[in-house]
C-alpha cells in the first residue's frame, strides 16, 4: 500500500504491519521536549502519579526559554522545577541560561532531531522539526508526563494535505511568506488534525532555515504536523557544524493518498503581512503601507535564525530605525548570537538603533523583553497575532518576514524592503 512520508514514520514507530489515517496508534518516541511553561506541570504530574524513572534520560530535552532569563521570581520558581528534575534523573539535554536558545531553533542546531524521528513537545510549535523530515507534533503537559514515563504517545494517524509550490520565488520572499500565504488560503483551521506536506520545486531549493519557518507555522493552520521530504539540503545540515545525525530518509510513495492537494505559483507571491488578530489575515505587504508601528520584533522560533538576521542586517545596514519604533532583535540561540557578532550583524543592528539581546521567546507571547501598551502596534517575525498576544488586549501585532520587519522599523510604518 502506498504511504505518505508521515504514515511511513508513524508506522516505523509501532509494531504494526500497516497503518491508515483515522486509526489510533500507540507510538514510540525518539525525543520528548518541555519548556519552562509546560514542563513544570508535567513534572508535578509525573511525581503525583508515583513514577520513579524516566524512560530514557537521553531522549528528554528541557529548555527554559519562555520567561528566561527569569523575568520574575515566580518564573524563576518554574525553572527551578526543571533544573531539579534534570538533576535528579540525569537528563542530559537540560539547557541552562547561557547555553539555551529558543527550543525549536536549539534542538536541530544541537543535532538532537533527525529525519525519520518521532518527536513530541509540550509546545505547539514543535511541528518545526518536520523541516528535517521528522514527524513532530505539539502536545500538552499531561502527554509529556506520560511520555517521560512510557516513552510512548497515543496518536490518531492524520490525513495529509499536500502543498505544491512551483515557479520561482520573488526577491525578499522566503519560507515565512509561503506559509503566511498558505494559511491565508486555507484558514486557521484549514489543516485541522492533518499533516501538511510541503513540496514542489520551490521547496527543493529552499534553505533549511526557510523550511523551519514553514513547518513551524503548520499549527497556525490547525495542522498536527508540517513535513518536508529530506534531501541533500537536509543531509548537509545534519552533518555540518559538528552535527552527526544519521536519520532515516523517508519519501512519500507514488500513489499515496492525500486529503487535498493545493498548488501555488510562487511568482505570484509578494512578501506577506498578516493583520490582527489571526495569522490567516495575510495579504501582500503593499496593502499595508499606511499602517504605522510602535515596535518591530525580529526573532522567535519562526524567524530568529542566522539567515533571518542576515536578511534584516542587509536591509538595516548603514541606516537608522525610526525614532518612533522600538526595534528588538533576539537571536534564537547562543550560537546564532555569537555568529551575528562575528559576522558584524550585531554592529549593524546596534548602529541602527536596535536592541540586540539574549535568546528568549520573550515578546512573542507577551512574556517580557518588549510588551505592548494599550493601543500600540507591532510588526513581528513571530508566529501569532492573536488579540493581546504581545501585551495589552488592545494592542496589535502584524506578522511578516525579517526583511519587511526591518524595513518597517526604518520607515516607522509597514514597508516593503524595496522602499529602503
Amino acid at each position: 500500500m502506498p504511504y505518505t512520508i508521515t504514515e511511513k514514520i508513524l508506522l516505523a514507530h509501532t509494531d504494526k504491519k500497516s497503518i491508515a489515517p483515522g486509526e489510533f496508534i500507540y507510538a514510540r518516541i525518539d525525543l520528548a521536549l518541555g519548556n519552562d511553561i509546560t514542563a513544570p506541570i508535567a513534572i508535578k504530574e509525573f511525581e503525583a502519579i508515583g513514577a520513579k524513572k524516566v524512560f530514557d534520560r537521553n531522549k528528554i530535552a528541557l529548555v527554559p526559554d519562555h520567561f528566561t532569563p527569569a523575568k520574575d521570581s515566580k518564573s524563576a520558581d518554574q525553572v527551578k522545577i526543571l533544573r531539579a528534575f534534570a538533576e535528579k534523573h540525569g537528563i542530559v539535554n537540560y539547557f541552562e541560561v547561557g547555553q539555551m536558545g529558543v527550543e525549536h531553533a536549539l534542538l536541530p542546531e544541537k543535532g538532537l532531531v533527525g529525519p525519520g524521528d518521532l518527536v513530541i513537545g509540550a509546545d505547539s510549535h514543535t511541528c518545526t522539526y518536520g523541516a528535517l523530515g521528522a514527524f513532530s507534533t505539539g502536545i500538552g503537559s499531561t502527554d509529556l508526563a506520560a511520555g517521560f514515563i512510557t516513552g510512548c504517545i497515543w496518536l490518531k494517524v492524520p490525513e495529509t494535505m499536500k502543498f505544491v509550490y512551483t515557479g520561482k520565488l520573488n526577491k525578499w520572499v522566503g519560507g515565512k511568506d509561503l506559509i503566511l500565504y498558505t494559511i491565508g488560503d486555507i484558514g486557521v483551521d484549514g489543516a485541522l488534525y492533518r499533516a501538511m506536506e510541503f513540496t514542489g520545486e520551490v521547496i527543493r531549493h529552499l534553505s533549511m532555515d526557510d523550511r523551519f519557518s514553514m513547518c513551524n507555522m503548520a499549527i497556525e493552520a490547525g495542522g498536527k504536523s508540517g513535513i518536508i521530504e529530506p534531501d541533500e539540503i537536509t543531509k548537509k545540515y545534519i552533518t555540518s557544524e559538528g552535527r552527526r545525525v544519521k536519520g532515516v530518509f523517508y519519501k512519500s510513495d507514488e500513489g499515496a493518498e492525500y486529503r487535498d492537494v493545493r498548488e501555488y505559483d510562487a511568482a505570484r507571491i509578494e512578501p506577506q503581512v498578516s493583520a490582527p488578530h489571526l495569522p490567516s489575515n495575510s495579504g501582500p505587504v503593499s496593502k499595508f503601507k499606511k499602517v504605522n508601528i510602535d515596535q518591530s520584533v525580529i526573532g522567535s522560533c519562526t524567524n530568529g535564525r542566522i539567515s533571518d538576521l542576515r536578511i534584516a542586517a542587509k536591509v538595516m545596514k548603514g541606516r537608522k530605525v525610526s525614532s518612533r519604533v522600538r526595534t528588538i532583535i533576539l537571536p534564537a540561540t547562543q550560537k546564532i548570537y555569537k555568529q551575528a557578532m562575528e559576522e558584524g550583524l550585531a554592529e549593524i543592528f546596534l548602529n541602527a538603533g536596535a536592541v540586540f539581546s539574549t535568546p528568549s521567546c520573550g515578546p512573542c507571547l507577551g512574556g517580557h523583553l518588549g510588551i505592548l501598551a494599550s493601543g500600540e502596534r507591532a510588526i513581528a517575525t513571530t508566529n501569532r497575532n492573536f488579540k493581546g498576544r504581545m501585551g495589552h488586549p488592545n494592542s496589535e501585532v502584524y506578522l511578516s518576514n525579517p526583511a519587511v520587519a526591518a524595513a518597517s522599523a526604518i520607515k516607522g510604518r509597514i514597508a516593503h524592503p524595496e522602499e529602503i
Partner: protein
Amino acid sequence: MKFKGKVWKFKDDVNTDEIIPARYLNTTDPKELGAHCMEDADPEFPKKVSKGDIIVAGRNFGCGSSREHAQISLKGAGVSCVIAESFARIFLRNAINMGLPILEIKEAGLIKEGDYLEIDLDSGRIVDLTEHKEYRSKPLPKFIQEIIRAGGLLRWVKKKGLKRRTR
C-alpha cells in the same frame, strides 16, 4: 455522568491566549489561573462565571498554544464543560488527558447565552432546558473513552504499569 449548567457564549477561533493570557503563565495554581479565565475574550467573565457553568463556542476552540494552563484555568473557574462546533487539536488532547469534559456539535450556534443545558456525557446527549431542544454530540472514539473511563491519561498509564513500554 449527568449535570446541568448555564451557558456562556463565545465566538469562533477562541485561542489559548484569550483563555489564559501568557502574563499569568508563571504559575500553575488552579485558583489563580481560574481568576483570570477567558479574561482577554471577556474581562468580566471571571466575575460572572459560577461553578458548573458551560461554555458554548464556535469553530476551532482552543487554537494556539499547548498550555494546559487553559484547562486548569477553565476547571479552576468552575466551568463544567465546553461545547463547540470544533476543537483545536492540542486543546482537544489536553482536555481528554486532563478530564475536562468537551462535546463537539455542529449546532453549537443554535444554543443561546443564558440557556440552561442538561448534559449526559456518556451518551453525548445535550438538552437545552430553556429552548426545549435536544442535540447529540459525535460519540467519542473507543480508545478515547478508555482514557476517560480510567480518569485521564496518567491514570490510564498507571493501570498499564509506570514503566517504559515498547509498544
